[in-house]
């Protein structure tokens, strides 16, 4: 007969919790976040079109996660609430990735110690700056540790070999086309479930960018023909178009259909008294 031990050392307790969380995270496919010359790109292997691993938080801030969907979805919604409330009670420019990363870190840290089970998630909060030097990428792990990363981050099951390869092959100032091609090639080498190189096509990928050159809401998903062109070595397309897709409807996805539309209000400020650009 086994009995419950009366005393578990804190070291053992923390180790057990960390192992538990790590095991949960390692089951999933990896997500790569990497800077390119005009912004930050997010690449995930995700066949679902509806259950996203990468999402918009605010004008210049995005969120990427691996692990248990319900847990990181919960954190994503909390992040959108945090950002919108802060932007509403102060100003849009007062919402920063650093503030959000701190709030996430405290939350993950408290859950790791106090709740019966830690969150099995790893997340990235990224904010695009006006230059590549001002880009901020924060990586948060299940226990609430924060790391301020430069250039690129890999999360998920087989992160280490990809991280290794990126440290050799990523360099600042890559074009979006090159950055995506590199990320997709490395994700295809994800050791989870076989060592063969897999060719990941646009249908298995979730790709999004924070585009430095867009005003106001900078987050755009990339799909369809545009993603194919960016990933193709023969096609000269190496960046996202400056105008959104034509046609009425939501404009958060770029597919390459860019017959010129009118000025979108996505690009205006929301302070009601300054909603038009100064020179209008």
């Amino acid at each position, binding site marked *: 007969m086994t009995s419950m031990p009366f005393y578990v050392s804190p070291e053992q307790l923390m180790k057990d919790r960390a192992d538990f969380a790590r095991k949960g995270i390692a089951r999933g496919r990896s997500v790569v976040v990497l800077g390119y010359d005009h912004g930050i790109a997010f690449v995930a292997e995700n066949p679902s079109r*509806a259950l*996203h691993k990468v*999402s*918009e*938080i605010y004008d210049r801030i995005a969120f990427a996660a691996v692990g248990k969907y319900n847990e990181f979805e*919960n*954190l994503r*919604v*909390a992040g*959108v*609430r*945090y950002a*919108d*409330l*802060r*932007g*509403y*009670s102060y100003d849009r420019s007062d919402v920063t990735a650093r503030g959000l990363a*701190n*709030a*996430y870190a*405290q*939350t993950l*840290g*408290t859950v790791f110690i106090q709740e019966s089970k830690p969150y099995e998630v790893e997340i990235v909060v990224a904010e695009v700056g006006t230059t590549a030097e001002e880009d901020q990428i924060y990586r948060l792990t299940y226990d609430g540790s924060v790391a301020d990363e430069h250039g690129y981050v890999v999360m998920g099951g087989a992160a280490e070999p990809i991280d290794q390869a990126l440290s050799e092959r990523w360099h600042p100032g890559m074009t979006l086309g090159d950055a995506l091609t590199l990320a997709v090639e490395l994700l295809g080498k994800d050791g989870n479930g076989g060592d063969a190189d897999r060719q990941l096509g646009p249908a298995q990928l979730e790709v999004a960018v924070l585009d430095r050159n867009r005003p106001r809401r900078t987050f755009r998903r990339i799909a369809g023909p545009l993603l194919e062109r960016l990933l193709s070595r023969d096609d000269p397309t190496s960046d996202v178009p400056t105008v959104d897709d034509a*046609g*009425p*409807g*939501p*404009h*958060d996805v770029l597919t390459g259909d860019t017959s010129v*539309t*009118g*000025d*979108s*209000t*996505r690009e*205006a400020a*929301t*302070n*009601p*008294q300054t*909603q*038009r650009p100064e020179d*209008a």
Partner: protein
Amino acid sequence: MTAAPGGRLPPAYLAAGSSSFTDFVAAHDPSLLPHRRPLPPGTSLDAPHGTTIVTVSFDGGVVMAGDRRATMGNIIANRDMEKVFATDEYSAVGIAGTAGIAIELVRLFQVELEHYEKIEGTLMSLEGKANRLASMIRSNLGLAMQGLSVVPLFAGYDLQRGTGRIFSYDVTGGCYEEHDHHGVGSGSLFARGSMKKTWRPGLDRDGAVRVAVEALYDAADDDSATGGPDLSRRIWPTIVSLDADGAVFRSDEEVAGVVTAVVAEREGNPGGGPR
């Protein structure tokens, strides 16, 4: 903003719940909502009021225009206030009534729509937007009874139907769909009379802009609280068009051209009738 001990996100942030920003704020920090603030009992106070807003539909869309004046009793409180706001890519709100509360409501409504878009990953339907605005106006009833009323006019491009639609409100939050054209605010009686005579089916966008400018001219002609064309200061009405291209503010040059043309035509013919 209140934070839980240790900087952790408070439970309301992590609670599974609605995708409404207003509902979240009401649960988490109700003092940020205009209608949750206690008001001292007493008589009404003088605060700036916004005046005339008109909307005119055309084939495939709708135009919303507002004058730029805010008044406080017999004083002009502000002569270049914006009272027409784009609330998302396909809708706009024009406000008449107490300016401070109205602008706060518009900001809340703008965040509400963007919040929904981000959480749900899709745009809210036009009727959904109109109903959300109605519930915000309804919750403002307490303030309205103390004289701080807000009466918006809402217009948008309906993505499902491919047409522009107009919704008007009363202070109790009643939401009514209007057809062809509508106006709110102190000068709206005259503006509506004007639009009855100048609007006709099958207008294009430029035609609708012209009808809106004529209506604002007629409103300013007879209502002291509505700002007329201010050629010396070059203050033009705010005009936004809502159609398949989204919400687009018409440029100052374009509006200036239309206003100058209307003013020139009214010279010697102040009513603007056929000569």
